[in-house]
């Protein structure tokens, strides 16, 4: 995982609440043993008709939304299953950021661990962005260092991120490597405290 400071890109609006990870990546695609190649299956049941044709009404299929790297969604994005295939699929498709008023806890963690930035904004801010990004090309810049989301027309909002995750993402650090440096403390805990 490599570190990053800013991400600028085109947005796509998906004005739906409670988008679950079963929609992000349906179960029939969870059988692979790799982390890569899931982008083609992203939102599969919404993206394609049951006959396998592209569904022209689905947000990601609209010509204006091609090449988007920032997904704007509504509340409780990523609820349901713990499958990390969800951020793998979003990332493999080309998304680097998801903006929403709230995220499901496990999905939120899974994004961070894969260098994908879940950006939580106020509901009114997200509503504004959803409107801007619907039916027209709309670009945003996310600055991780400053914790801001801005557009070219004066919109600016700040988002919360813990100091821990900010540092991890800016530097692209490997969490396991950091933990292994605490080997002595873990071993000591095991001797004295662990439930047998």
């Amino acid at each position, binding site marked *: 995982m490599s570190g990053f400071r800013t991400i600028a890109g085109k947005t796509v609006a998906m004005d739906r609440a409670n988008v679950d990870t079963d929609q992000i990546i349906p179960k029939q695609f969870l059988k692979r043993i790799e982390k890569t190649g899931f982008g083609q299956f992203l939102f599969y049941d919404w993206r394609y008709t049951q006959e396998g044709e592209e569904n022209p009404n689905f947000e990601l299929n609209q010509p204006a939304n091609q090449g988007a790297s920032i997904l704007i969604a509504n509340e*409780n994005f990523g609820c349901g*299953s713990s499958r990390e295939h969800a951020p793998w699929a979003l990332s493999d498709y080309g998304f680097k950021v998801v903006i929403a008023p709230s995220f499901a806890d496990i999905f939120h963690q899974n994004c961070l661990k894969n260098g994908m930035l879940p950006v939580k904004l106020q509901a009114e801010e997200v509503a504004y962005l959803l409107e801007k990004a619907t039916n027209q090309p709309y670009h945003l810049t996310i600055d991780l260092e400053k914790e801001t989301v801005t557009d070219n027309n004066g919109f600016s909002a700040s988002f919360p991120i813990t100091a821990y995750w900010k540092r991890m993402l800016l530097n692209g650090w490997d969490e396991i490597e950091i933990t292994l440096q605490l080997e002595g403390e873990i071993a000591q805990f095991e001797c004295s405290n662990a439930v047998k």
Partner: protein
Amino acid sequence: MGKTIIDKIWEKHIVHQEEGKPELIYIDLHLVHEVTSPQAFSGLRMKNRTVRKPERTFATMDHNVPTDNRYKIDDPVALNQMTTLEKNCLEFGIPLAGMDSPEQGIVHVIGPELGLTQPGMTIVCGDSHTSTHGAFGAIAFGIGTSEVEHVLATQTLWQTKPKTLKIEITGQLRKRVTSKDVILYILSQHGVNFGQGYIIEYCGEVIERMTMEERMTICNMSIEGGARAGLISPDETTFSYLEGKKHVPKGDAFKKAVMQWKELASDNDAVFDRTITVDANAITPMVSWGTNPSMTSSIKDSIPYVKDCKNELEQKSLERAIDYMGLKEGQNIADIEVQHVFIGSCTNSRLEDLRQAAEIVKGKNVHPTVRALVVPGSQQVKRQAESEGLDAIFKKAGFEWRESGCSMCLSMNNDIVPSGQHCASTSNRNFEGRQGTGARTHLVSPVMAAAAALYGRFVDVSEKVAVEVI
């Protein structure tokens, strides 16, 4: 100030604390299955790392497992995922309840029945329904594959302590209103994200009277309310369930363990960040009609009207859901016809669930237009059920009696609901496509599912007449 059980367990598991960082907590038990682990093992191999505590790790296969002919796996990709788990367990020395094991089953069924799950533990698994194990007074939560890799390598996780939410359930449940109805009722009242950022403790007289199986059903669906974990303070019911289980200490060691477990219960003056009270008397058999578990109503009710929605977002969600489900606003729940019935999953596939369903089904026949499946949660549940003759009751009524696995809860194997058809399911999620592309899932209790199999539609099992007439 008193402490909650959540505070007590959490504090005992902190390995490392540092300003500006989450806490590093120790993980006592790591359960592993075939779907969310292969990439974690590959990650270890790539960095030349090993599994720190294979003896605190336990694996099984459940998601992909066929439930008719266990050894006939048509999909080569699924087969590869299963053999990959075998190879990984062998290479890293992890115990595996594989296809040939008499202990194989759904990971959240076998953990408790083998006594791997114990009070006071921290338990994780790459599966969101890990919250099930909280029924024993453990902090148990689902994790992603990166966290699976982290636990394999270090036996720890970086976690920020969640807030605490107490759900107190008072009163008395009516006959044939089950713990499944209780959790569906809570979701119908509070939505799918009220638990975000919290660990729930369920308590109150209704919980105290519940069996371990009933408690597991409630804790299992904590994640459907957005809470990563839900738990119940351990009591005599917990201890007597655990006594004699394979991995539970025996003799004096058991007595000593019980003494320690008794200390875990939340103190009377413990303060929670939030409290919700639920009146059990108000609960009737519940049926989900939409595409998330909060879209659930009483069997006595009807589908809500779009005009009654609080806001535009809710309105759009309702319109989408009833369109997907092929239902109409205002339609009576009791008029919904079902073509499939699934009794199984980590929510409701334990012996007690099967006994309750069998009691409804005994001597009756499955409706001619219904295909009905019983999928025991584990090989052990299957053997016990067969020794009691439950399999014969189900088969005589026209149910298919299957081998253990996750099966039609998420239909990763061949147990699929065809597009456009309705399924009364004892599982935990009614998301679009969950049981098959275009499939329409209705979440219910085992007794409601059993009755639906006989009628071909939903009936109120709490009404005596309904059950007798069947």
